[in-house]
């Protein structure tokens, strides 16, 4: 028994087993279920077990699917660009410009204050702000910048992306700030001593060292945006669709197999994206 316990392979497996079990039950099993159901058939009010490709055939045969997937990726990419720019700037300011640790923590906490309210509230509060007679339009009119209210402020791709950026920038700030704090300050001094300009230091020292943080933030933002459907529904006034909305519509109409098929394709797309991202950075090494 004692020798058995000393076997490091066995103890390794034993130590990993609780987490493996939890993941198997709460992650792997549901996904397997979704994959199975995606081959089932459905009628108006019931679903029946079968093995058929109808759901996928319809999914890949419909021009709507491609349009919606394109739209989803478009939202993800644009949101990523904005959250990365803003997130990196905020993290840079916090990590390198704010000198004292107390202020760093205080300002960092300040960033999280909006997150004390729910996602939906933060999103919906944009609606009266951007509306036809909203604060933004009436301010611009009173300043004489515009004569007519801007229609594209609300219920447009603009408002959707604005809400996404607002909701998810913090997910970029946190991991980038985290990696920046771990950069050895002497490396920056060395760069400075070697005569590098501020910009050179940024591109040759800081950004490469921040890559894991950027990558983690990217994964957060991309997966969140691709799975989100409620923001798209509210901020576009239901006029645009992304994959999440496709799935939620199917569920609402009791078309579970079709929803499952769409979910499987979305999952595959997201995994593919993450796979590509991970080729650029070895996160395991960096953590």
């Amino acid at each position, binding site marked *: 028994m004692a020798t058995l316990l000393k076997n490091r392979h066995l103890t390794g497996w034993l130590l990993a087993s609780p987490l493996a079990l939890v993941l198997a039950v709460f992650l792997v099993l549901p996904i397997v279920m979704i994959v199975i159901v995606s081959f089932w058939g459905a009628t108006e009010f019931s679903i029946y077990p079968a093995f058929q490709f109808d759901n996928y055939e319809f999914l890949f045969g419909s021009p709507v699917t491609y349009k919606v997937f394109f739209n989803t990726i478009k939202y993800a990419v644009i949101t990523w660009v904005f959250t990365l720019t803003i997130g990196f700037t905020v993290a840079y300011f916090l990590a390198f410009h704010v000198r004292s640790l107390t202020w760093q923590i205080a300002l960092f906490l300040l960033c999280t204050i909006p997150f004390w309210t729910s996602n939906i509230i933060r999103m919906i509060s944009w609606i009266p702000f951007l*509306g036809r007679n909203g604060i933004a339009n009436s301010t611009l009119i009173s300043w004489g910048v515009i004569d007519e209210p801007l229609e594209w402020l609300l219920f447009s791709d603009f408002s959707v992306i604005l809400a996404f950026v607002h909701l998810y920038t913090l997910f970029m700030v946190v991991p980038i700030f985290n990696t920046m704090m771990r950069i050895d300050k002497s490396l920056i001094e060395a760069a400075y001593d070697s005569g590098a300009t501020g910009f050179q230091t940024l591109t040759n020292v800081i950004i490469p060292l921040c890559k894991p943080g950027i990558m983690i933030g990217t994964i957060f933002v991309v997966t969140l945006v691709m799975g989100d459907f409620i923001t798209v529904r509210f901020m576009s006034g239901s006029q645009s669709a992304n994959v999440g909305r496709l799935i939620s*519509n199917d569920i609402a109409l009791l078309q579970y197999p079709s929803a499952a098929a769409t979910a499987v394709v979305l999952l595959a797309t997201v995994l593919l994206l993450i796979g590509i991202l991970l080729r650029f950075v070895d996160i395991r090494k960096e953590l």
Partner: protein
Amino acid sequence: MTETKSAGLSRRSLLKGAAAGAAASAFPAPMIWAQNIKDVTLRQFGTGVSNLNEVAQKVKEDLGFTLEMTALDSDAVTQRAATQPKSFDIADIEYWICKKVWPTGNLQAMDTSKIKNYDKIVGIFKSGKLTPESEIAQGTAPHTVGFTDGPDGKTFADSETGWMTLIPTIYNADTLGIRPDLIGRPIAHWHELLNPEFKGKASILDISSIGIMDAAMVCESMGEIQYGDKGNMTREEIDKTMAIFTEAKKAGQFRAFWKTFDESVNLMASGEVVIQSMWSPAITAVKSRGIPCVYQPLEEGYRSWGGGIGLSKNLSGLELDAAYEYINWYLDGWVGGFLMRQGYYSAVPETSKNYMSADEWGYWFEGKPAEGDITNPFGDKLAGAGETRDGGSFYDRMGAVACWNAVMDENQYMVRKWNEFIAA
């Protein structure tokens, strides 16, 4: 009635032991009823229009048992009724949803002999005719899905059988809502929804089964399509309808689509939208904020809907008795009065009269000018002296129904086309 009462009794005796059972059986049934009913909790769900806390409170006061209300949107209602039969006792659903839900076998048929006011229920729910002369409108008219063959019927019967699928509670004739102050001219036809004059200021609801009906009313009014039956379109008719609406969407006709009651109220109240398909209480909600809003009667008629109460298959014994008691109470008039003050109609209008003032009855039901202030059930003023209800009396409005909300034979095809429209 006695049979089910004794079922409850024996269950109690099983639970509480022989002594309690002997004591209980010594008393007549109503005594047991009075003792037990306070413990009963019935779980009801439905759309926000009729699942109101005020009703639950009144049930507690009048009947003594607890009614738990859950308000959901129409899609969620269908989903719950069809897939989670154990999660509710009473389903407050719409008749067109019944067509999807009834075949699942999650609901039980109701014995009309136990419904006190059955004879007073208006004709549209029994024969389909409001008055003996009236014509039956297109779509899923409530009487076509209102009856089943027997206690275990799985299909719908075409005439009164004594077993109802849903007990009708609430219904209305829907039309377009407009902001008269922002439009500034009379509106008389459904096709005004796609009038380029309202570009970027129109809206339609994003619940496919209802939205397609509104779309059909519009297309027919434009003279673009002649439907055989708007409530049961052919694929070709669906394609044509959605093509017209997709074109309008691409041209920027719509400001936003709405799915819930509150969304429609906010769109209208904020002036984002000046013309849209809307529900009656949403109009009253906008009006009670002091913003002018009209539920515009249109020449082509109304698109109508009806709702009713269905009982879960799982209900039995004491709970089932309580549910029947609740249904009888529902049709007794208090709820009817409450709903009519929001602009809906009660399935048994004449009992609601006892719970409304003569002025309210005249305004809401008879279409007469108000003599004093008309308020909604929450006390907000909706109309002043001299004003009349949009669309006139009950018989004028319900007599001008062009079609009922429906589930078509081509429903799945329609839903796919609708999704394409939303994604376009």
